[in-house]
């Protein structure tokens, strides 16, 4: 049995709900620009970024198959997140004066 047959069944999912969730999320982002931004730019931008993070999580988990991978691969995927966090924080901190 080849490697890709090992847990083939576990790796299958229906992509339509995930796709719809991502599209609806994008819709929420767009709607927030038109409906929410006039009240609070900070709140709107925060919402847009959080929803964007949710979308990326869905894409990563399902379409990039992270949900079906070994936890160790998921753990390693956190390393660049840590580095990115340090970089974003450090670089943007040097702007705030």
């Amino acid at each position, binding site marked *: 049995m080849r490697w890709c047959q090992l847990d083939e069944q576990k790796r*299958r999912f229906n992509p339509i709900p995930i796709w719809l969730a991502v599209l609806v999320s*994008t819709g929420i982002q767009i709607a927030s620009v038109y409906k929410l931004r006039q009240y609070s730019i900070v709140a709107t931008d925060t919402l847009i970024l959080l929803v964007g993070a949710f979308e990326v999580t869905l894409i990563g988990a399902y379409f990039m198959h992270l949900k079906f991978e070994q936890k160790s691969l998921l753990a390693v995927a956190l390393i*660049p997140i840590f*580095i990115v966090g340090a*970089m974003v924080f450090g670089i943007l901190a*040097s702007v705030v004066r």
Partner: protein
Amino acid sequence: MGEEELAPVVKSRPSSQTAFYAILAVLVVATAVLVDLNYGTPAERLVFSEVVIIWGALLLLYFIFNRPFITTGESFRKTESWVKRWLYTTNHKDIGILYIVTALFYAFVGGMLAEFMRTQLVVPENHFLSPLEYNEAVSIHGLVMIFWFLSPLAFGFANYFVPLQIKAKDLAFPRLNALSYWTYAFSGLLVVSAFFLPGGDINGGWTLYSPLTSNTFMPGPGPTLGFAGFTLLIGSITISSINFIVTLVAERGPGVTWSKIPMFTWFILFTVVQMLFAFPDLLSGMFMLIADRLAGTIYFTSTAGGALLWDNIFWFFGHPEVYIVLLPAFGAICEVLPVFARKRLFGKNAILVATFALVVPFSFLVWGHHMFTTPIPPTEKMAFMVSTMGISLPFDVIVIAWLITITGGSLRLKTPFLFALASIVVFIIGGIAGVFLASVPLDMLFRGSYFVVAHFHYVMVGASVFGLFAAFYYWFPRMTGRMYNEFLGKLHFVLSMISFNLLYFPMFFLMDMPRRIVTYNVPSWALPNLLATIGAYIFGAVQFILVANFIQSMRNGPPAPANPWDADTPEWEPEHVFEEVNGGFTTTAKITPALGLGAGNSPPMAKTPALDALRSSEQPATTTQVGPNVVVRHHVSTRPIILSGGISIALLGLAMLQYAYLGLPILGIGATIAVMAIVGWAWDDMNSVFRIPEGITEKWPFNQVSRLKLGMWSLIFSDIILFATILTADAYIRINSPTWPAPNTLHPIVLGAISTFILLSSSPAAYMALDSIRKGSTRGMLSWLGVTLALGSIFDGFEFYEWWQLFSQHMYPSTSNALSTYFFTVGIHATHVLIGLLVMVYLIIKGLKGGFTKSNHEAVEMFGIYWSFVDALWVFIFAFFFLL
């Protein structure tokens, strides 16, 4: 498999290939000559350049359909010549040797530049070099020594010995390994050849501080070519990092658990992890820099970005780079000390934990100490001061462990040990000087002075080079089968140690002399500079002792015993012959030095190939008689060298674009060659000429992850850093900009929303392609791949449409910060999409030829992961430019 089975079915080299090369050469030379002579009118030259491009396109089509560069076993089994072996090899030992020799060549180049600099500074008011020449020498010396000498020398040893130490057959991706080497070799040539182009070479220091490196202050194609060469090198390093990570995780031989991995290999692992995450940051910086120079973006030339943005991007990479250079030498020292002290390495686990848990992560948290004299907030300076002082602690652990190891040992004062000891001594001196620089107030005094020059040369030259010299002498018998001359080795050590300190120690007393001045007239600086220059001359000259010793010893040295130092690491053990025997494998081969100059007192082998080079019988191979009874099989591919050469020529053309009649044809020719090599590469894969075996790694912690998937995820990790840097730079500029267009003013949300809908819809399509082939439906897979291809193409079409709309309104990258960041970021993303589209075309062609089955479709899954990653990136880009 015996040698007889390799009997060649030789196809003579098609005369068309020779004709192709000849035509290419004539065209390049003719183009250069005609343009150089300013021949004809601009219109005539334009016509000529177009003719060249059309020629290139026709040749491309011809060679695609006639497949001239096929490296089938048939046509290349006869590749027995010495030159071809080294040009086409993918064997890890050969490539290791190539790295070492090439690194020494670049050391010679960088060393000559250093001698020029020291000659300029030998006395006050000297005019040996002009200011521009001096700046070029300083800049290229730093770049070449760090990036084309130190790290590649270490990776020469890593290529050779890591697979041996983990009992692997080769690196996980041998052709990519060759590609890494050739891109490295060519990239250095690009940087060095930039001296001869208009504008000269890079002259803004090895830190490439922008806007000093912008068109305003450093115009001309020369510096652009230097930056392009440097960018190519980063590509090489990224490929190499991924290759080593996958190798170390997935290719370890049976029984080689993590706890049994030798220290050198551990330190290479730490190094490549840092490389994987540090270099993409610099890569994005280089892209921005080149875009500023060629495409008119204003990342570093506007006040919103500028010098502080470059500082942040460069040093976020720059400090890990110090450890990237240092750690392989530390690994070598960890190998040498216990062997020559005849004791076990003290505190092995403490060293590993200190390095992996502290040095590696902390290296990404200390970059701000290079910016204490910039206007970053005081709080941030304090944070970086604390983290910088903290990172010295794990190094204390390492040094103390080394000292305890040799204390009370039965020391053998051989050359490798002496160099290892010297490395520790100078590292301590350089390290202590570094602690001063971690302090904000002291750094204010020392920054930009020769004190800093002394500090980092003690660390990077002393500790690193001496450590690698130790490795050189230590492994020389293993690589050549001969012993080196011990007297010459010790002479090299003594003179190196004396001249090194004569060169750099006086610089500690030049703490009031600025490090980047071309001349001086301060009397008190004269003596230290004179001493340093004398030291530089001696230090440079004595390195020829090493070269002479090795050349002489390779030819006439006494045969080396199989294990001359009584070491207990696996590279000294008999090599394994990787022949499957009922699920296991047998060990029959003996030590086989890559340089093929004798196998010491190893017992003769009866026609047994050294199967360290063997990956699969399907791969093309050539044979080389390396001893009376030793035959080494080499797996060859012409693709890496041709691809690297094509990319290099294309980059030369790119740098020359401002001279359109010269740049365009060269760019076209280079791109043609590169595309041909890529097509050939794909052809090889499609026909399993050079097949990487599938399979899960079966190694903790990635027991169920395939090698390709591990490689793909490593690539994605590095791409995450690349895009994070770009988006962080965008955010930085946005925060610093006095104004920024509100949503829906510059970029219509509707257009962006449609693009987003299209791209996000392509991910499920890519998944459906995978799901179809999992069910065995090739037709379904092809249909869904077609849908994905169409959606991706439409998405890129929308992006180009929006670009065209902006251009038609006279909105260019140089118009504003908002447009600069938009064009650049979307452009990089669109390039990713384009790469995905090309991969899809390949998958569809392979699928049409029946290349994927229910049980063999890993490439489709890898593509899906990449494609979805590109989609995920767009989510942030869409939000940043259209919604926020």
